[in-house]
C-alpha cells in the first residue's frame, strides 16, 4: 500500500518534471512550423517567375504553362506549402534551379563543412574561455584583467566581418603571409584535410565567443571564491591550486552552460557572414549564393537548416536557464 502510493508520487513527480519539457518541445515544434511557413512565403515572394528562370527568355507560353503544371505552381499556395513540407519531412528537398543537382546532396556538403567549422570553433572556445576567465579572476583588478575587460568589450561590440578582415590583414595579406585569406575546400573533401583553411574562419568565431564566455567565468569564479565554503577550504590549509581546480572551477562552470549554448546559437547564426568573408563552402555562403541566383529550393533548405540549428541551441540555453531559475526558487524557499 505504502509502496504503491510512493510509486504514484514518483509517477506524478516524473510527469511534473516532464511537463515543462514537453511544453517546450511542443512550443518548439510550433515555432519551427511557423519558421518554415515564413521561409516558404518569403521564398515564394521573391521577384521573378521560376518557370521563366528555368526555360529562359526564348520559351513559348505553352512550354511555360507545362513546366508550371509539372512544378505544381498552378496549385493553390497552401497546397504547395503542404507538398513542400511533406517533401522536406520525407527527405525530398527538391533540385537546385541553378545546377539541377539534388538539394539534399548540396545541403549535406554544406552542413558537413559548416558543422566542422562551428564544431572546431566551439571545441577551442569552451576550454579557452575557462582558462582566460580563471586567469582574469586570479589577477582581478590588475593590469591584465583590465586589458582583458577592455578587449572583451571591443570584441563583443564589433561585427564578425570586421574581426575577420582584421585577422586576414594580420595573417594573410598585409602584415604576415602565413595563412590563406580564402578557404578553398574542393566539394566533397573533408575540411580537416585543409587545416590552414579552417584557422582564420574558426578564429573569427572563437575570439568574440571566448571574450564573452571568459567574462562570465571570471565573475563566476570571483563569486565562488568569496563564498564561506572556499574560505573554509583556505582555512583548512588546502593549496590554492587545489581550491581553484577542485572546488571553485566546478562551481563556476554551471552558470556558463546556458551562455555557452547561446554562444553556439550565435555561432550558427553568424555563419552567413563569416563563410561569405572567407568564401568557406558551408550553408551560409551557399545561402548567399542561392539568394543571388534566386535558387528557391536551395534558399529554403539552407535557411531551414540554419534556423533549426539556431533554434535547438536556443532551446538548450533556455531549458538550462529555466532549470537554474527553478533551483534558485527552491533554494530561496528552503
Amino acid at each position: 500500500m505504502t509502496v504503491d502510493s510512493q510509486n504514484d508520487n514518483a509517477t506524478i513527480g516524473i510527469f511534473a518534471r516532464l511537463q515543462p519539457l514537453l511544453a517546450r518541445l511542443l512550443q518548439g515544434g510550433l515555432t519551427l512550423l511557423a519558421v518554415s511557413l515564413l521561409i516558404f512565403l518569403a521564398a515564394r515572394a521573391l521577384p521573378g517567375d521560376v518557370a521563366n528562370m528555368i526555360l529562359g527568355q526564348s520559351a513559348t507560353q505553352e512550354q511555360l504553362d507545362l513546366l508550371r503544371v509539372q512544378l505544381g505552381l498552378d496549385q493553390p499556395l497552401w497546397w504547395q506549402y503542404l507538398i513542400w513540407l511533406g517533401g522536406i519531412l520525407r527527405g525530398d528537398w527538391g533540385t537546385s534551379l541553378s545546377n539541377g543537382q539534388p538539394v539534399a546532396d548540396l545541403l549535406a556538403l554544406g552542413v558537413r563543412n559548416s558543422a566542422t567549422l562551428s564544431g572546431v570553433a566551439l571545441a577551442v572556445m569552451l576550454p579557452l574561455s575557462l582558462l582566460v576567465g580563471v586567469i582574469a579572476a586570479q589577477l582581478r583588478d590588475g593590469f591584465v584583467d583590465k586589458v582583458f575587460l577592455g578587449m572583451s568589450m571591443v570584441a563583443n561590440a564589433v561585427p564578425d566581418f570586421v574581426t575577420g578582415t582584421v585577422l586576414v590583414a594580420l595573417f594573410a595579406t598585409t602584415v604576415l603571409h602565413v595563412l590563406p585569406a580564402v578557404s578553398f575546400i574542393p566539394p566533397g573533401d573533408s575540411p580537416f584535410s585543409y587545416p590552414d583553411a579552417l584557422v582564420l574562419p574558426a578564429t573569427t568565431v572563437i575570439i568574440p565567443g571566448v571574450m564573452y564566455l571568459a567574462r562570465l567565468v571570471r565573475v563566476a569564479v570571483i563569486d565562488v571564491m568569496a563564498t564561506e565554503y572556499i574560505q573554509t577550504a583556505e582555512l583548512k590549509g588546502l593549496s590554492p591550486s587545489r581550491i581553484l581546480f577542485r572546488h571553485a572551477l566546478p562551481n563556476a562552470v554551471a552558470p556558463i552552460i546556458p551562455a555557452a549554448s547561446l554562444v553556439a546559437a550565435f555561432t550558427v547564426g553568424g555563419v552567413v557572414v563569416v563563410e561569405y568573408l572567407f568564401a568557406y563552402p558551408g550553408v551560409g555562403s551557399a545561402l548567399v549564393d542561392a539568394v543571388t541566383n534566386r535558387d528557391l529550393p536551395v534558399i529554403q533548405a539552407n535557411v531551414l537548416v540554419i534556423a533549426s540549428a539556431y533554434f535547438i541551441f536556443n532551446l538548450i540555453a533556455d531549458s538550462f536557464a529555466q532549470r537554474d531559475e527553478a533551483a534558485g526558487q527552491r533554494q530561496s524557499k528552503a
Partner: protein
Amino acid sequence: MEMTLTTHQWVRSRPVSGWWRLWASTQVRWGVILLVAMTVLVVIGPFVAPYDPAAPVGKPYAEPSAVAWLGTDNLGRDVLSRVLSGGVYLAWMAPVSALLSVVIGAAVALVTAYYRGWTDLVLMRSLDVLLAFPGILLTLLCVSVFGPQPILLVGLVVLTLMPGVARVIRGAAIPLLDREYVLWAKAVGTPGPVIILRELLPNVSSPLLVELGLRLSWSVGILSSMSFIGYGIQPPAADWGLMVSENGTGLGTQPYAVLAPILMIILYTIGGGLIAEGAARVMARTEGKA
C-alpha cells in the same frame, strides 16, 4: 528601518532615479562623447571631403600620396573622401533602429509585465517565435524579396532586436511589482499608465541603457554586415561596410581602403559598447548594495 521616518515616508522611499547615476559612470560618458564625435564627423564629413566620393581621382589601388591622403580604392576613387561620406546611412539608420527597438521593446515589456493576462501570453509567445529566427537570415530573406530600401532595413533590424530587449526589461520589471512603492501606488488608486511611467520606468533605467548601448552596437553590426554581403546599401554609394567588401581583394596592395572604413565601424560600435559596459557596472553596483 529608521525610526525618524514616518510610515508614509518609509513606504514612499525608493531607489533614487537611476538616470543621473548612469551619467556619473566614466564609461557611459566616454561612450556618449565618442558617439557624438562620430556623429559630428559623419555629418560634416561630406562637406570637408576633398573629392566627390563617386569620382575617380587616380589609378585603382594607388598608395597614399599628397593627392589622395589614404590612397585610392578599387575604382580609383579617393578613400579619404569615401570614408568621410560613408557613414551617412549608418549614422541615422543605426541609432533609429536601436532607439525604436528599445522604446518598443520596453513598452511591450512594461505593459505586459504590469497587466499580465492573455495579451501578455500571446505577445511574449509571438516574440519567442521572432527570437527563434537568427536576425541576419530574416533580414537577408526580406531584403532579397523587397529590395534593399533603408526604411525596410531599419524595420528588419528593429524586428530582430526588439524581442530581446522586451525579454530583458520584462525580467527587470517583474520583481519591481512586489516592491512597497508600487504596491503603495496601487493601493492609493494610481492609474496603471502612471505607475508604469513614474514607478517602473525610472527603476529599469540601468538595464534600458545597457540594452540601448548593446543594441546600437548590434544595429551597426547587422547594417554594416548587410552592406558587406551585398544586401544593404548599394554601390556606387559610399558606405563603410560596402567599402570593406569592394576593396577586400586589394587588402595586400592598398590596405588603407579597407582598414580606414573598418576603423570607423570599430569606433562607432565601441561607443555603444562603452555605454552598455558602464551601465552594466552601475547596475551591478546598485544590486550589490540592495
